[in-house]
């Protein structure tokens, strides 16, 4: 098992190198000069040159063969790409070009917003999706099954930005129940400790902020939870249906066990593995930031942040943010793989 985990982690190395390469190349391929983006169109040539020097943009992309010709090995490796990788290894993500704030600083505030929303959405998705899936599997072809499966198919087909807009229309504009944007109302003061609104308000005992935070979270959570919920419900159902056809389930029934015991003690245990996979992968993708949901609800998370940075050519943010997102993705894939090996005794990796 340990050997499998180690091998799996080693196999990530080429992927991660590839990821840094893609992120780096993206910066180079996208039209526009970051130095010009920083100073504006009409900047003096020498200022542009100075900034290029500062950002290291005058260095060669990968390796400096001219330096090598002179026998300068240090200069040979002093390239934009290797500098970039070196900075990453030191966790130095640079400073935003437009706002002049360190990327890591903004990340510390933005990432908790994404995590808070994503985890809450995932909890909602699991606690609704799994029971619905079990219920429709145990009453196959019933009305309940039909309704929930059509419902989940509608959920999978839902453009979530549109769902978000419909929520805003109904609950914010017509009914005025929930606020439509941001994490907290401007009138509510909250001291930031962890940058998680719910955690901070509980720690500081600020109940007004807690209620306001929950109100702000309600609509984006529902929008974000819809697709994972539908996927989890469908997965749970099909996985349960597979297991319920097994002989040991018939045996359990014929022993006279109660329906609930058979369903939860016998069937669910074996049916849950693919569901865990889906939950893991979906959590990874939600944590990677939901560009659309964050745009609609003006949620200050990393998805919107990176999206704005891509359009604004703010390369340090694009690099830092994209790398973080890719790492989360890769990490959750790894966890899913390992959980397979741990949870399923039939799977052996040599």
């Amino acid at each position, binding site marked *: 098992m340990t050997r499998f985990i180690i091998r799996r982690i080693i196999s990530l190395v080429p992927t991660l190198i*590839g990821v840094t390469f893609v992120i780096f190349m993206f910066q180079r391929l996208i039209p526009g000069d970051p130095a010009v983006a920083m100073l504006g169109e009409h900047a003096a040539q020498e200022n542009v040159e100075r900034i290029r020097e500062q950002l290291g943009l005058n260095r060669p992309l990968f390796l400096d063969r001219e330096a090598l010709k002179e026998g300068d*090995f240090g200069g040979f490796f002093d390239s934009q790409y290797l500098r970039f990788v070196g900075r990453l290894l030191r966790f130095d993500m640079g400073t935003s070009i437009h706002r002049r704030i360190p990327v890591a600083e903004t990340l510390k505030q933005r990432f908790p917003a994404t995590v808070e929303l994503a985890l809450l959405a995932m909890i909602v998705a699991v606690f609704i999706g799994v029971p619905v899936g079990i219920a429709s599997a145990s009453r196959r072809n019933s009305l309940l099954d039909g309704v929930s499966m059509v419902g989940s198919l509608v959920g999978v087909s839902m*453009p979530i930005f549109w769902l978000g807009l419909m929520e805003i229309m109904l609950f914010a*504009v017509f009914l005025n129940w929930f606020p439509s944007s941001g994490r907290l109302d401007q009138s509510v003061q909250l001291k930031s400790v962890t940058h998680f609104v719910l955690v901070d308000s509980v720690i500081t005992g600020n109940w007004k902020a807690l209620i306001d935070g929950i109100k702000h979270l309600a609509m984006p959570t529902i929008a974000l939870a819809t697709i994972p919920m539908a996927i989890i419900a469908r997965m749970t159902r099909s996985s349960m249906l597979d297991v319920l056809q097994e002989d040991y389930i018939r045996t359990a029934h014929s022993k006279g066990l109660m329906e609930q015991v058979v369903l939860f003690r016998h069937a669910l245990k074996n049916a849950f593995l693919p569901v865990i996979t889906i939950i893991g992968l979906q959590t990874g993708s939600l944590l990677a930031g939901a560009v659309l949901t964050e745009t609609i609800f003006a949620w200050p998370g990393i998805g919107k942040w990176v999206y704005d940075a891509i359009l604004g050519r703010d390369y340090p943010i694009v690099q830092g943010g994209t790398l973080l997102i*890719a790492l989360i993705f890769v990490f959750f894939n790894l966890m899913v793989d390992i959980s397979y090996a741990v949870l399923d005794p039939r799977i052996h990796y040599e």
Partner: protein
Amino acid sequence: MAEITTNEIGVADFAVREHRSLWGDAWRRLISSNTARLGMVIVAVFIFSAVFAHFFWQYDARTDLDYALKLKPPNLFPTEEISSIHPFGTDKLGRDIFRRVVHGGWNSLRVGLVAVGISLSIGGLLGLLAGFYESIAISSLERVFLLAAIGLFLGFLPSWIAGQYFQALLFAGLGAIAPYLEGIFTGRRARMAVFATIGLLLGGIPALLVSPFTALVCAVLGLLAGVALSLQLGGQLFSGIIMRSMDIILAFPSYLLAIAIVAFLGPGLDKGMIAIGVVGIPVYARLARSSVLSVIQKEYILAAQSVGEGHNRIIFRHILPNILSPVIVQTTMGLASAILSAAALGFLGLGAIPPEPEWGAMLGDSYRFLTSGAWWAVLFPGLAIMFSVLGFNLLGDGLRDALDPKLRV
């Protein structure tokens, strides 16, 4: 005693049961399922209206403008105020939303087909080859090409550093003759030593023309390339390279990657199609590979190999037809997700360029008017997205059940 004819006991029915093909059977199951029928109806309405509107209902987005009709709610009958009929209302420029929704269907259909076409053709082929060569030994001719390509690739770095590009060709040549040299030097160590020496010389000597330091670096790189070429690389490596590159694409969230590609290519519906298509490649590659792996150990593949059929023929005559059904299902569902992604890009202002009718862009255009109560401008384009996506998903779901041979009666 009465005579009993064969007809009466139903033997005839049983014996001359009509021949049913696999596809005929699947079709029959498809049209007997309610959900699949619903999906087909939705998809048919969607395709028909889009095609009909495109060819027979003239619409010029550039001239469609009428400020007098700005943001009017839906009306099914002409009123005193508005003489024209707008079943879905009008948008901020007074354009009829119904008309734009119907014409938007053509764009969504186009995006879906082109994007899925890109993902399917590239991803499917890569996955097919990866799965095939992972399990079946490559032929000696294929090996020559593979090793020559690897040699070219490995030789590129030293040749670039030295600025002597013919060096890469030398390494390609080393790769090409590697399978023959392996026949001569059968011991692992001997082979590695010979290849490393050749690599060292190929890397170092041309680089001496530039400078001694360059020669040193190139010689080391050449040595490593030589060692790599001596490792009796085969199909596993080929498959590994393909699947690891797919992993790299998969390490980025699909929306973010699509946005990045559009930012690179510039906005526009055609660029959006390419972006969505590229992002979808790994999905089809993985699906195709795992499907190939599940059929490749079947006896009919072994039989085809043992009668001496070539690899091309085995792939396209024996494997491809047998992995078709999961691919068809995925393609149908892929159409749904491509339409959804295109709408998302359009919503963010990265898809269709403004006057062009596109559902996502229409939403992005008018959601700011939601607070002033113009719900119709947001509701109807969104419903169009949802129903078209739902239609393809329902159809895909039905196809999955219909094409499952385990359910065949």
